[in-house]
């Protein structure tokens, strides 16, 4: 997991988790309180409804009591029931309807002791039907508001029912009466804006207690929940965006320099200890950068000492190589001289002709030795360090350098440039190689080579050689810093590698800024004493 990802994950965890917990707690608390309030209102409404049902049931009982009293004094009813007068039968059949209309009951039934319906107010034509079960069931629920499902011509009807009875002689009659439980009845019950009351009876039951069922529309609670959820999601989204932006800024602020530092560190090895680890930050990253810079400088000093040791160790090998090369170069000469001595001794008259014949061999051997000497001169040993005027070296070099075809050389030398302790020959070879490379590169683009010197401290200088040539890729630069790599038809491939070695030997730093199409800029910094 990258540092940037960790920052993002950490910020998200620290910021979003508390908001999520807060949202969940607020929602849960709101839910709990609303539910408690809803429960209290439901209980209150249920109590009010039970009181109302009790009052309605009491009113029905009072009306039945009045009917029973009236019937006990009704002679036509007595004749129709006790005397079994056929003439009064229509009166008996119609009594229920008239009595229900008179008392405002929507359900009224008169039964005899067998349970036979003698008269019915809500269903006139159900007379003579036996239905003792209904009365028995309602009687079983006596003392409380009772719901009964009774027949009507149009179908079942739910009614709040009560019972009463009267005795005529030896006969006992039962009055079953009630009011229809419909929307008009429910509208008379106590109401609440968000609660609804209903009375229901199980499908299979004919009679049951009138228990109010309170249902909440839940719309208010749901609307509040939806509102809280919307604001919660909005807050969470805004926080998430803010966290993302801050995290990316922090990551860029923290991990960006780390990535650059890692890149600079990756380019450091024993052959390239010229990395730039300068930092103007005063935080931990700046301290780390400066620490790495000090470490690289120590490595550079160690590498110099190591290379010196290697060079001393390699002197023997070089001597053997030189011996071998010289022997190879001298052998043909020795052979030619021996041949000439033999001709002089045996046939002196042929000496001029023989010399002319063998002369190319002598010339080739001398050329070989000359080339060999030139090659070995390029890897000569380091000289003594003494105060060195770099401007003077640059001017002398520029005076002896002819501008190549299509390339110009411009000097920008600081007049107050201090002398620095260095081997003048090494400095000359560095400048010579850099200017030669720059002129070669600038010639390809008809560009200009600029050499700039400046004072960076009391005894420290900076020398910059830049060209407007084709530049190099990272891979080309890496290979150019190695020995014997060149893209020039007659190049030795030693220019930049010699520059790198010589600057390291001098303890200077070398920085090369180049890119394809952007030219090349080489910066040399002498160390501050």
């Amino acid at each position, binding site marked *: 997991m990258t540092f940037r990802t960790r920052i993002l994950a950490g910020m998200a965890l620290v910021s979003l988790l508390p908001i999520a917990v807060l949202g969940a707690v607020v929602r849960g608390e709101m839910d709990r309180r609303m539910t408690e309030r809803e429960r209290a209102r439901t209980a209150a409404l249920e109590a009010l409804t039970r009181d109302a049902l009790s009052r309605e049931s009491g009113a029905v009982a009072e009306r039945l009591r009045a009917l029973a009293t009236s019937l006990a004094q009704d002679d036509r009813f007595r004749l129709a029931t006790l005397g079994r007068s056929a003439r009064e039968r229509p009166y008996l059949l119609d009594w229920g309807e008239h009595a229900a209309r008179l008392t405002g009951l929507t359900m009224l039934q008169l039964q005899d002791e067998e349970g036979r319906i003698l008269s019915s107010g809500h269903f006139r034509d159900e007379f003579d*039907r036996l239905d003792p079960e209904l009365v028995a069931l309602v009687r079983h629920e006596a003392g409380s508001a009772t719901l009964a499902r009774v027949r009507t011509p149009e179908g079942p009807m739910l009614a709040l029912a009560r019972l009463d009875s009267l005795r005529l002689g030896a006969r006992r009659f039962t009055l079953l009466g009630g009011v229809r439980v419909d929307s008009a009845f429910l509208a008379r019950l106590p109401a609440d804006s968000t609660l609804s009351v209903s009375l229901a009876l199980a499908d299979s039951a004919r009679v049951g207690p009138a228990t109010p069922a309170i249902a909440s529309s839940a719309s208010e609670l749901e609307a509040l929940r939806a509102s809280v959820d919307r604001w919660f999601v909005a807050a969470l989204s805004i926080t998430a965006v803010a966290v993302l932006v801050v995290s990316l800024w922090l990551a860029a602020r923290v991990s960006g320099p780390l990535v650059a530092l890692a890149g600079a560190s990756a380019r450091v090895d024993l052959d390239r200890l010229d990395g730039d680890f300068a930092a103007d930050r005063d935080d931990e990253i700046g301290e780390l950068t400066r620490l790495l810079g000090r470490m690289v400088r120590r490595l550079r000093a160690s590498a110099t000492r190591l290379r010196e040791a290697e060079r001393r160790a390699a002197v023997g090998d070089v001597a053997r190589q030189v011996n071998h090369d010289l022997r190879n170069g001298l052998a043909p000469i020795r052979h030619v001289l021996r041949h000439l001595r033999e001709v002089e001794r045996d046939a002196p008259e042929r000496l001029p002709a023989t010399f002319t014949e063998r002369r190319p061999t002598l010339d080739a051997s001398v050329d070989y030795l000359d080339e060999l000497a030139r090659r070995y001169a390029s890897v000569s040993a380091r000289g003594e360090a003494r105060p060195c005027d770099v401007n003077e070296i640059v001017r002398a070099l520029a005076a002896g350098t002819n501008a190549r075809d299509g390339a110009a050389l411009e000097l920008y030398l600081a007049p107050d440039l201090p002398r620095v302790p260095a081997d003048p020959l090494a400095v000359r070879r560095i400048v010579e190689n850099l200017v030669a490379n720059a002129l070669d590169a600038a010639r390809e683009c008809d560009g200009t080579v600029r050499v700039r010197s400046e004072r960076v401290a009391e005894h420290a200088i900076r020398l910059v050689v830049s060209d407007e040539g084709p530049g190099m890729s990272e891979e080309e630069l890496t290979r150019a810093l190695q020995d014997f790599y060149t893209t020039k038809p007659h190049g030795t491939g030693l220019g930049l590698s010699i520059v790198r070695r010589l600057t390291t030997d001098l303890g200077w730093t070398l920085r090369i800024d180049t890119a394809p199409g952007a030219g090349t800029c080489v910066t040399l910094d002498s160390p501050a004493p």
Partner: protein
Amino acid sequence: MADSSALDSIRAELARDVVRGDARPSANAACGAIPPDAAERAHRVAYPAADETARSIAARLVAIAPPHVPLRVAAVAAGGDTSALAIVARPLERTERCAAGRLTIPLIETRARAIVPVEAP
């Protein structure tokens, strides 16, 4: 209602207890046949919405129906009857003309009354 004595009893009861008017049991014979899809129709006894006599007869039939036959009455507009049973008023001279595919059972007959001026002797 296939039993003629039971039908006579019902006719008599309807004329006596249900119909609040001057009525007598009908002596006309039934005609027609039970429609083949009668059992599939709703268990309702239809009557013309404005005919109180027909409603009372329909309600009585519902009341005396066996408990496993959940009949109920339903007022219908003229000509809108699709029920298994329908109580309709028919002039006497039309009771003998049965509707095709339906069983028609005459239940009661009412005697028309007339108030006429008595001519002077």
